[in-house]
């Protein structure tokens, strides 16, 4: 794994600049090259993925499915049990609800229910289209719902290097992994290691910015306004440490505690709805395991307990913004 210093000063030749989306695609392609059991399935994916995918891997590895989320998800699970390593692309995270019976009742449970007789190495891609007037049926961020299900691993990385390394880990993992990627992060560029074995372990958080006054845990797309807020606060001399959990299940409790031991103050920012979200879980963990470290109450910023509206004027302030984050940090000082 790369240290922060390595990330900030990449050695020439070992990294190249690419977007988050390119890194994600590259992870899939490299893993498909490496392991012929990896197949890709979902609606219209051969077209969205570019003809390159078919040219490179052929129709036997890239499957455009009918609009049958509940069942092609289950097909992927059956195929995983029987020797393949499918990546099931559900496209919109909101469609994971249709697939949820198979993900929850089958994929997450069958290894346990059979006493370990079978393995289910499968990846479900669920992209969060939080903004852009998609309206409520296309804009959900259902990761908290799946966090409440035992037997699933859940990742939601925010940088190009992280999505590549974690996606590779997910594909190589022997268990079901849900990937909550974020559409808003697709165009963001970053240095990505060219090493085809660049993998980041599932379950390890990353310190995206060191700081000493306040700890800020940012989830998925919330990293963007968070970084803007942190830059603005730095100009005022307020030093914020930013942690990206990268993996939502399991959460890296130690990383949170180490940071809060330093700062004594914690803000959690995410785009999920407020009730029972990642922030709720982190607050509970800190209350149980690290209450003594806290100098002030924890603050949570999230989307309200309201559906995502269509109109830009309503959507504009729906998720935590830079200003909300700056104000929250100030309140703790």
């Amino acid at each position, binding site marked *: 794994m790369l240290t922060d210093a390595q990330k900030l000063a990449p050695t020439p030749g070992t990294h190249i600049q690419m977007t988050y989306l390119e890194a994600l695609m590259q992870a899939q392609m490299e893993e498909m090259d490496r392991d012929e*059991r990896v*197949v890709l399935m979902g609606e219209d994916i051969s077209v969205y993925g570019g003809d390159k995918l078919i040219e490179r891997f052929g129709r*036997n*590895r890239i499957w455009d*499915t*009918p609009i*049958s989320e*509940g*069942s*092609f*998800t*289950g*097909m*992927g*699970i*059956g*195929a*995983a*049990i*029987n*020797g*393949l390593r*499918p990546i099931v692309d559900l496209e919109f995270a909101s469609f994971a609800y249709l697939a949820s*019976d*198979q993900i929850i*009742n*089958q994929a997450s449970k*069958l*290894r*346990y*229910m*059979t*006493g*370990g*007789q*079978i*393995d*289910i*190495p499968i990846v479900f891609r669920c992209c969060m289209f939080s903004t852009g007037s998609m309206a409520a049926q296309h804009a959900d961020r259902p990761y908290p719902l799946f966090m409440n299900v*035992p*037997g699933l*691993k859940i990742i939601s990385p925010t940088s190009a290097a992280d999505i590549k390394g974690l996606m590779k880990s997910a594909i190589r*993992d*022997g*268990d079901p992994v849900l990937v909550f990627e974020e559409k808003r992060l697709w165009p963001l560029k970053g240095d990505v290691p060219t090493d085809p074995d660049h993998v980041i372990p*599932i*379950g390890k958080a990353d310190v995206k910015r060191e700081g000493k006054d306040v700890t800020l845990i940012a989830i998925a797309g919330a990293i963007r306004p968070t970084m803007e807020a942190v830059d603005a606060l730095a100009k005022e001399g307020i030093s914020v440490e930013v942690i990206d959990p990268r993996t939502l299940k*399991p959460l890296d409790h130690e990383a949170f505690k180490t940071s809060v031991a330093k700062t004594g103050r914690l803000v959690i920012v995410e785009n999920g709805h407020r009730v029972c979200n990642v922030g709720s879980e982190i607050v509970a963990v800190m209350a*149980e395991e690290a209450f003594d470290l806290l100098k002030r109450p924890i603050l949570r910023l999230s989307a309200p307990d309201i559906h995502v509206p269509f109109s830009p004027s309503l959507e504009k302030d729906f998720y935590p913004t830079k200003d909300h984050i700056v104000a929250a940090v100030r309140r703790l000082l």
Partner: protein
Amino acid sequence: MQLNGDQRLEAYRRMLRIRRFEEEGMRQFKGGKIPGPFHASMGQEAAIVGACLALRDDDAMTGTHRSHGHPIGKGAHLDALMAEVMGKEGGICKGRGGSMHLADNSVGIISESAIVGGGIPLATGCAFSARVRGVDQVTLCFFGDGAVNQGTFHESLNMASLWKLPVIYLCENNGYAITTSLAQSHGQPDIALRAAGYGMPGVTVDGQDVCAVYEAAAQAVRRARAGEGPTLIVANTYRFDEHSFGLVISGEPYRSVEEVEAHKRDRDPILLYRTVLLEEGINEESLGAVEDEVAEAVKQAVKFALASPMPRPETLPDYMFNSPLAGQYSSAAGLERN
């Protein structure tokens, strides 16, 4: 394609193994040794065994909540099955699955789904894997008439037909979903007709005739292996007992005592097949030897199961993951409990 010499007695043996396993299971259930519900397949043995015998050892299967017959039909050892229904450590699923989920992977069962219709996509995907990997393995998918009304049935049959997957959909049509009859729940009660809508053959067979089921299944297996795609087989059968043993259904009875008695008397697949075997010249002695052998195997299974310890509570998290995360979900880490 007909059952050949050895298979003829084997069919009898396996049907009898299901029957005796469940009869004994019910005794143990009454004796308080089996927790949870117990869904018996008694009456449906020919539909199960006929289909299973058409498979090779390396072929795959999925089953349902009525799960005892499927592994036995495919040739599973009885000991670990009996231990599982008792929730024991020696159970086939280490006490994590129980009576509704007797999946024995050693005989090719990838799962038994107690979510009605839940196993249909899994079987389809299992066949999809064979297709992608270029092997000639076939998958047999069991489900009941009730499951036909799930969306997964429609979606899966469509995809299997579209991609000519080597899968056999076998409906154990016992006429009822708990208390709801076919007529009460199917706009088209002739289930085999649905196959036409997906562009695959739909075959109805007498599910009490093990030879008829075998022939239909063997034909479907041949098609599947030849790359000609899936087949829907509807085996008309009957469940002798209540939906679940011990289930008390109050209010209007949904089927008459006469109906049940008539089936037990005239349509018992094991009695019918025994008569056929005798007519075909297999003597009482050979049948008696099979009967003794089955009785012995069931006795042994109960002995094994009773002697097997209960799983230790500290093993609760075992089998959650193939690749556990550092320090999590292993018995060593203990339980997070406050």
